[in-house]
């Protein structure tokens, strides 16, 4: 009920209505998502939780336009994603969504700056605009002095910061993070979550997929999935604030 009140104030970004995703594995059909209805507003900070096999990765892939639902309707900024072609989806991913992955997913042969520039190349920006925007994004995540380092010359936390910079560089509508602290020690993980907190306060919309309570505690709203259905969707009254000791 509290949720609905908030919706009236915020602008709706994502509307998901009764979507389902069914995979075919040989002769069997797997219902990864059964019936999900969900609304996400601008400047939401959402954690999607659930045990493995609950469908949270599938939901993230659909929200991130990497995949399309088998059934149901998905409106992104009032555009019907379920009807889009691969090229349209690529274009939405490029402009509207910033991904942060558990395994960072950086191009190992390119410098961190080139990695951050990648979405801008596909967005059609010229070399100088690309350089400028990527530099800014690297400074925003506190890595202005690491632009010429390749991923293997950076620590895990720094790699994830580069990934965040890459997600931010196109100024997307949402930042979508899949287990962003999964490959980091707890201190570094905390640093990344603090970074998300700052980004949220600066007005970004953030969706974090995780199975760790520690990570979910930072979010404003927590959705719990089980067996392809939403088990629980509530505002997190114990949202964790920035912790001083975790500041880099």
């Amino acid at each position, binding site marked *: 009920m509290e949720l609905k009140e908030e919706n009236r104030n915020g602008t709706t970004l994502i509307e998901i209505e009764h979507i389902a995703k069914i995979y075919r594995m040989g002769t069997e059909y797997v219902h990864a998502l059964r019936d999900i209805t969900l609304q996400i507003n601008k400047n939401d900070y959402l954690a999607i939780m659930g045990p493995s096999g609950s469908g949270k990765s599938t939901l993230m*892939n659909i929200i*991130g336009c*990497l*995949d399309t639902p088998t059934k149901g309707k998905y409106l992104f900024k009032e555009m019907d994603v379920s009807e889009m072609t*691969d*090229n349209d989806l*690529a*274009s939405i*991913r*490029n*402009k509207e969504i910033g*991904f942060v*992955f558990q395994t960072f*997913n*950086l*191009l190992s*042969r390119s410098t961190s700056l080139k990695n951050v520039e*990648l*979405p801008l*190349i*596909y*967005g*059609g*920006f*010229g*070399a100088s605009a690309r350089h400028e925007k990527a530099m800014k994004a690297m400074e925003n995540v506190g890595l202005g002095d690491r632009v010429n380092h390749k991923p293997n010359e950076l620590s895990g936390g720094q790699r994830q910061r580069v990934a965040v910079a*890459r997600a931010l560089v*196109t100024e997307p509508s949402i930042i979508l993070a899949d287990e962003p602290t999964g490959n980091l020690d707890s201190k570094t993980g905390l640093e990344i979550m603090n970074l998300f907190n700052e980004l949220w306060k600066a007005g970004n919309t953030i969706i974090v997929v995780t199975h760790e309570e520690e990570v979910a505690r930072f979010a404003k709203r927590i959705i719990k999935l089980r067996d392809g259905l939403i088990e629980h969707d509530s505002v997190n009254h114990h949202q964790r604030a920035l912790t001083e000791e975790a500041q880099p």
Partner: protein
Amino acid sequence: MKINEITENIKIAFEAMRVNKLRSLLASLGVVIGISFVILMGWVLSGLDQALEDTFNIIGTDMLYIDKWEWAGGRNWKKMRQRKNITYDQATEFCEKIKSAELAIPNAREFGYKIKYKNEEYQGMSFIGTKWEHSMTPAGATLIGRHFTQFEDDIGSNVIVLGYKVHQALLNDGDPVGQYVKIEGRKFLVIGVIKKQGTMLFDFVDNQCFMPIKAFQSVFGRSGRSVSIAIKAGSIEYLDEIRAESEGLMRQIRNIKPGEENDFSINETKAFESTIEVLRLSVWGVGIGMTVLSFMVGMIGIMNIMFVSVTERTKEIGIRKAVGAKKRTIWIQFIVESAILSFFGAIIAFVGCSALVYLTATFLPKIVPATAFLSPVLPYELLLIASFVSIFVGMLAGVIPAVRAANLDPVEALRREN
């Protein structure tokens, strides 16, 4: 935007090649061989063409030769053997009566006799009895000494002008002028040497000796052979007119009734061209066969390595797609990479062939003089054609792997552990 993408793709391709140097080299080996075939074949043929043209210029493109035999040999050989010889008198009559030609001279030829100089003996060349005007045709230009004069011609002096090869064989570069040679027991004074004119294909032109026709007849007899007539038109434009007059005149001299076929042939250098064309085509045919085969191998090599590349870089493709690369972008990336890989093979072939061609053209003619027609530099048109062909072959080889890369499901690709 597209320029941006292409330059970015070229950078990616170079990066991929830099990382896998040996693999890229091996993958492009087929293309290296294919392009080498094209280049070397083109090089030999262009040298051949040049040599032919030079030879035609010596024989003379404005020359007609009336003969019992047809050069091109297209007609029935037996039928030509049954033709009556063109006698010396008929030839002389023709030369006196022809009006439109700049020059017309009879040539009597004998083959299979020896020429002796001191202890040296040479065989395998022909003796030609001709008129002094022979010196005015391209084939009569002298390198050393002089041709015989009208006076020597009139009285039938025993003077002889040696062909280049005959001179080399008998005197081994020594000064021949003033020396005596013996032919069928008769002494002849050497007065000059004809310029070297032959090429690989027509070295017989260096293997002839010229003497006044009267002297020729006193050695070899007056009859029993067919005399040919060399006609110099003065310019190619007059050839048709002269051919027509020659035909009429010759028919009249040989008493051919209207409606009967000619019992002689009017030859010109064009006749060679069709023969040469067959040779050229067979060189091309064999060459193209081998080229196509090696390009097939080259394509398979590149296609194979591109499949490996796509598999290895599945994760990278997933990342690129996640941040917004479209299918077409990924497709272009791999096509560009494949084309560059193939072009890289072509460049290796250019460098290798240039070195080979330079060395061959510099040193081979010292061992095999007949190969002197080869040029030490590759024609640039060939390099241009080879570049385009290699890029095309590379793109073709890259199509299937690139489509596979472009169609990868981003979710699946991101899950890959590489």
